[in-house]
């Protein structure tokens, strides 16, 4: 027996624990750092249930920072997992919900929902989901058949779908004159600042089942990467697996999009880094993307809050600044 690391389960647990530790450290940093600094000791006391002497600090921790860090974690986890799944289904390491225009589609749905005065849940979530399914469908038609496997066709289709979505979004924005305009624009750039703990709870309840379903299909994703015909001869029902994966992923991406707006490239950066470190086995990559993506987004959000002298930049600006150069690098490398 010379195969190293004989039991996959042990590897999954080790790597998950490691990344969970990172996530906890990052979360603590995310809560304690910001325009008002909160000492680690004080923070831990507050987390352990002791009331803080300073009620304002208590409010900052529990009403503002903590929900925000949780939201960032959930959003990062979802988007990087979304990227991972799309990369597996389309067999293209450059696929990602934002690049493919799926996020844009759900943004259109969400904006229509906001403008028609629906509540965030379930109204806007549903319109966003409908929007993402519509773009997914459009994308699959545009690059249908064999050409789906060709990288450039798919990416070009995605860019075009994205351009089309942006045009519709701009149209909707230009028709809006009242106070909602500022909200929409900030939200379009990716924004994690508008939420309370209840909304984060609802989002978590929607996302957790998706995470579990995707983990159950993680080994199927490995097999799908061998090609449709091979996967079929290995006992996979390609149509069923692909349909489940696409629908679950679109649902969870659109759920996060309607809470935090458009955040690009997260699904590209994290799966790529994780693959470099842990290899390509999706049974490891699915939990690792959830934990690692969460940490990444919390760090990005922290940078968005801390870097500017005054106020903050939208977190979407930070993710795009990191992600877009990496995308170009990967594209260049894949051509060679």
């Amino acid at each position, binding site marked *: *027996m*010379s*195969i*190293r690391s*004989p*039991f*996959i*389960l042990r590897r999954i647990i080790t790597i998950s624990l490691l990344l969970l530790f990172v996530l906890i450290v990052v979360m603590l940093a995310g809560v304690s750092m910001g325009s008002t600094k909160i000492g680690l000791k004080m923070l831990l006391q507050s987390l352990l249930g002791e009331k803080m002497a300073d009620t304002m600090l208590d409010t900052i921790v529990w009403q503002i920072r903590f929900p925000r860090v949780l939201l960032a974690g959930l959003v990062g986890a979802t988007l990087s997992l979304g990227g991972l799944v799309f990369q597996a289904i389309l*067999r*293209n*390491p450059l696929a990602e919900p934002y690049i493919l225009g799926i996020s844009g589609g759900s943004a259109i749905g969400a904006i229509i929902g906001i403008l028609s005065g629906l509540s965030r849940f379930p109204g806007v979530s549903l319109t966003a989901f409908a929007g993402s399914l519509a773009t997914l469908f459009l994308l699959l038609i545009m690059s249908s058949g064999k050409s789906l496997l060709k990288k450039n066709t798919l990416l070009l289709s995605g860019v075009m779908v994205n351009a089309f979505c942006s045009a519709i979004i701009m149209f909707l924005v230009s028709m809006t004159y009242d106070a909602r305009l500022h909200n929409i624009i900030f939200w379009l750039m990716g924004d994690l600042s508008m939420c309370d703990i209840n909304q984060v709870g609802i989002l978590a309840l929607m996302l957790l089942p998706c995470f579990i379903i995707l983990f*159950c299909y*993680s*080994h*199927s994703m*490995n*097999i799908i*990467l*061998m*090609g449709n*015909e*091979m996967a*079929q*001869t*290995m*006992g*996979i*029902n390609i149509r069923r697996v692909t349909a489940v994966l696409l629908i679950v992923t679109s649902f969870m991406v659109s759920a996060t999009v309607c809470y935090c707006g458009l955040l690009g490239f997260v699904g590209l950066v994290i799966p790529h880094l994780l*693959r470099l470190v842990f*290899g*390509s*086995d999706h*049974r490891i990559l699915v939990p690792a993307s959830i934990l690692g993506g969460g940490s990444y987004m919390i760090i990005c959000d922290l940078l968005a809050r801390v870097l500017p002298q005054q106020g903050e930049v939208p977190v979407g600006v930070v993710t795009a600044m990191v992600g877009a150069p990496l995308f170009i690098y990967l594209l260049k490398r894949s051509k060679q």
Partner: protein
Amino acid sequence: MKKAVEIENLSFSYSDNDILKNTCLSVYEREFFIIIGPNGSGKTTLLKVIAGILKARKGRLKIFGRSFKKYTRKSLAKTIALVPQMGMVDFPFTVSELVLMGRFPHLNMLGFEQKKDMEIASKAMALTDIKHLEHRTMDQLSGGERQRVFIARAICQEPRIILLDEPTASLDIAHQVKLMDLMEKLKEEIGFTVIMVSHDVNLAAMYATRLLLLNSGMIEGVGKPRDILNCEMLEKIYKCKLLVDKNPFGDLPRITPLPLKFI
């Protein structure tokens, strides 16, 4: 002898015209069965129908005496494994990860391999002589090595029938012979039934227990190489001038296509 694959009156079409026409065929257990024929004669289609990738328009297909329809996807995967023409994976899986994927039809819902699965994979890698490559990723391998990885993956699936689609197409002559030797060894030692599509008539003649000659969807002949490979028939089917003589090792036909300037 037991029949591994039994095909009756099978027809297949992509659109209007049939690619396979009323095909009838039996492949026996532990055969090294090679399908030859010109480009577009339906060889790969026939292989894909047996693999369950393509559905026949009409006709019957039995695997080990049981109707094809009675197999579930997983039970079919435990019976038949396919080695693709040129398997490529864009993601940097290691050799051992890829070979282990062959265990997929044997795993439970969550898909965690047990010690037994690791041992089977280890044995498959030893058989195909890729043990030393197990921690390399697929993009670091040569064509011949990659081919052996996919064969190891198929062995790992523990099938009874192994299907290969032009496995020697992109290999140099030494690797071609090595691959054929390996398949013969697997047939002898494990008892696989090997069904292979090949363009190399001479290799096919040296290894096949029986040959199937296919021409535009029709079976032109099935039988021992020396019965199937006669000059007249081959010249008619391939539409070119051929020299057919004897291989000095044993009583096997040797085919040389003749260029225009020699005629």
